[in-house]
């Protein structure tokens, strides 16, 4: 009797807790399935003689997803299978996104470095045929710096003050309207901002193309970004600081200037830098309003100028090998400037971040 009891397998005795003792795939299973599917993809590709590696990859991915689903369903059950499918899909999305973006970065750097040197940075295109090698972006860098600088000078004061109004004073219909239209303004396509300045400054008031006209359009694009980011930062300033200052008898405007703005200055500077980075790469309004030039023009208020993004577009449009090389190099310079501004913005944010004491 007792012997028989002892011999009975204990597993059958009581109900199992569901997930702990269930059969699970070994840890190496996904890797194994991946290996098999890559082999299947390559095999199918070789057999059918397809040129495009994308097709190989697609086959491999399909085999992987189907294989995972089947194996997991058999071993672990349907719910786990779905979970694994989701996991692999998420990873596929990640890889899908990385491939073009990595290709973009890689191409720009490798192609850009071909002609990028000191000469390229310090010379303009004056006196050069389009298919000749040589030339540089000096005039374009000057143009970009001046246009972006002017746009910043116009957009930042208005943007800052508007954000102050919205956070510190804004009640009622006007503030609501401003908030709504700032949001709407954020979404204005850059070419529409360019068309607006074109229709007023150039077509209606009869002024010519100039760096300044372009910077006005850039300022329109920059303002809502500055307002939005400054607003967020001002909202983060604790009310206690304001109240303490007001309780000491400091008038409101001095409270804002001496307490609120200095507290938020790091975040505000970050927002401004990001906005500057954004407009530095804008091409469309510059194309409509600054018009492009081969020569150095240091005066943004008179006559046409060039600018980096516009230079890239022009050289691409020329299409000769030398010009395309120049386009890539200028694109690399442009990206470097934008990334530098971004990194600077992060640096300021980290440096000025309120420290927990």
């Amino acid at each position: 009797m007792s012997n028989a009891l002892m011999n009975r397998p204990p597993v059958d005795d009581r109900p199992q807790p569901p997930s702990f003792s269930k059969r699970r795939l070994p840890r190496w299973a996904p890797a194994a399935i991946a290996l098999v599917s890559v082999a299947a993809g390559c095999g199918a590709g070789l057999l059918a003689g397809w040129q495009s590696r994308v097709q190989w990859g697609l086959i491999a991915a399909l085999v992987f997803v189907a294989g995972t689903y089947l194996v997991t369903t058999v071993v672990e059950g349907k719910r786990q299978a779905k979970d694994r499918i989701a996991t692999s899909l998420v990873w596929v999305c990640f890889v899908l996104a990385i491939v073009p973006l990595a290709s973009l970065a890689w191409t720009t750097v490798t192609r850009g470095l071909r002609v990028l040197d000191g000469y390229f940075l310090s010379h303009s295109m004056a006196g050069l045929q389009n298919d000749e090698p040589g030339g540089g972006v000096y005039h374009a860098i000057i143009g970009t710096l001046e246009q972006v600088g002017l746009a910043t000078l116009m957009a930042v004061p208005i943007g800052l003050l508007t954000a102050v109004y919205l956070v510190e004073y804004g009640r009622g219909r006007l503030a609501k309207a401003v908030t709504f239209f700032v949001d709407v303004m954020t979404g204005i396509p850059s070419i529409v901002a360019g068309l607006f300045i074109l229709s007023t400054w150039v077509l209606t008031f009869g002024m010519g193309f100039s760096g300044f006209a372009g910077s006005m359009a850039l300022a329109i694009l920059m303002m809502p970004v500055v307002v939005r980011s400054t607003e967020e930062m001002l909202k983060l300033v604790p009310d206690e600081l304001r109240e303490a200052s007001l309780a000491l008898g400091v008038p409101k405007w001095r409270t804002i200037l001496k307490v609120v703005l200095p507290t938020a200055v790091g975040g505000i500077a970050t927002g401004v830098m990001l906005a500057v980075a954004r407009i530095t790469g804008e091409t469309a309004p510059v194309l409509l309003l600054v018009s492009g030039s081969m020569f150095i023009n240091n005066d943004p208020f008179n006559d046409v100028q060039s600018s980096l993004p516009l230079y890239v577009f022009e050289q691409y449009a020329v299409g000769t090998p030398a010009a395309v090389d120049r386009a890539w190099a200028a694109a690399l310079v442009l990206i470097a400037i934008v990334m530098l501004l971004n990194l600077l913005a992060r640096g300021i944010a980290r440096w000025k971040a309120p420290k927990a004491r």
Partner: protein
Amino acid sequence: MDTPTSKAPAPPEAPQGRRTTGKAGDRVFLGLSRGSGIVLLVIMAAIAAFLAYRASLAISKDQANFLTAFAWNPQGNPPEFGIAILAYGTVVSSIIAMAVAVPVAIGIALFVSHYAPRKLAAPMAYVIDLLAAVPSIVYGLWGALVLVPYLAGLNQWLDEYLGWTYIFDKTGSGPARSLFTVGLLLAVMILPVITNVIREVFLQVPRMHEEAALALGATRWEVIRMSVLPFGRSGIISASMLGLGRALGETMAVATVLSPSFVFSGHLLDPGGGTFAQNIAAKFNEADAFGRDALIASGLVLFVITLLVNGAARLIIARRKEYSGAAA
């Protein structure tokens, strides 16, 4: 030591003086800040007014139907131009971009917020931030010189196996400077923008919801389906709308990649077509004064469309804020 003694005698008269300057200062400051708010409103109004004014100049002389004509010939005699082909190209390329970018963006956002190893997640978010800042002209250059030749194989494959769907039927052997390629490039461009917003929303999902689901024995996917996605739904919608706004108004990337034409074609892989922004950039230099007004008219249409899309996105975000506020 010096400052307290020098300050000590001041108080008796200071408050009086301070208060008056304070009031005047307050008034000036309020005036300045309210004024710049009003400046913003004036700019918006001026944009609408001036574009509408110049557009009306052009449209009044247009001999074709501005909304339905398939031609762009404002210099002609009589001038004939219409936006039908531009509207079609803009909508189609944006739809392709959205169809590709939104699911992938959700995937990447999930990857960063829920799947990626901790050490990878923070740099990933940072890199996505940086990618959102890459200028569109660089995307355009890459699209025209790398993506277009690369897509030739994919186009051939699509034509061969999906040609029966009509839209994937490639009739010529031209390069892949088509609306389909433009859509894919736009998808790559708006991907970081959409991903950023969605990731923010996913990170706000209450931990309690997820932990409750986990405690009930849900798998990771079930947690996402039952707690993360429902919570993030309005965020996903508004992020997509913001991306759509970007795609609709994108100029340079489309201008470099597309080889434009004003012949209507339902075959997405064939080169041709055009978008509002691309048409403005391409036709601007050769346009005379009247031609520029005609381009402004098409810009006005683009302006109105993006206003509607962005307004809708903002409404959804505002509604969501109200709901979550009511729930808290």
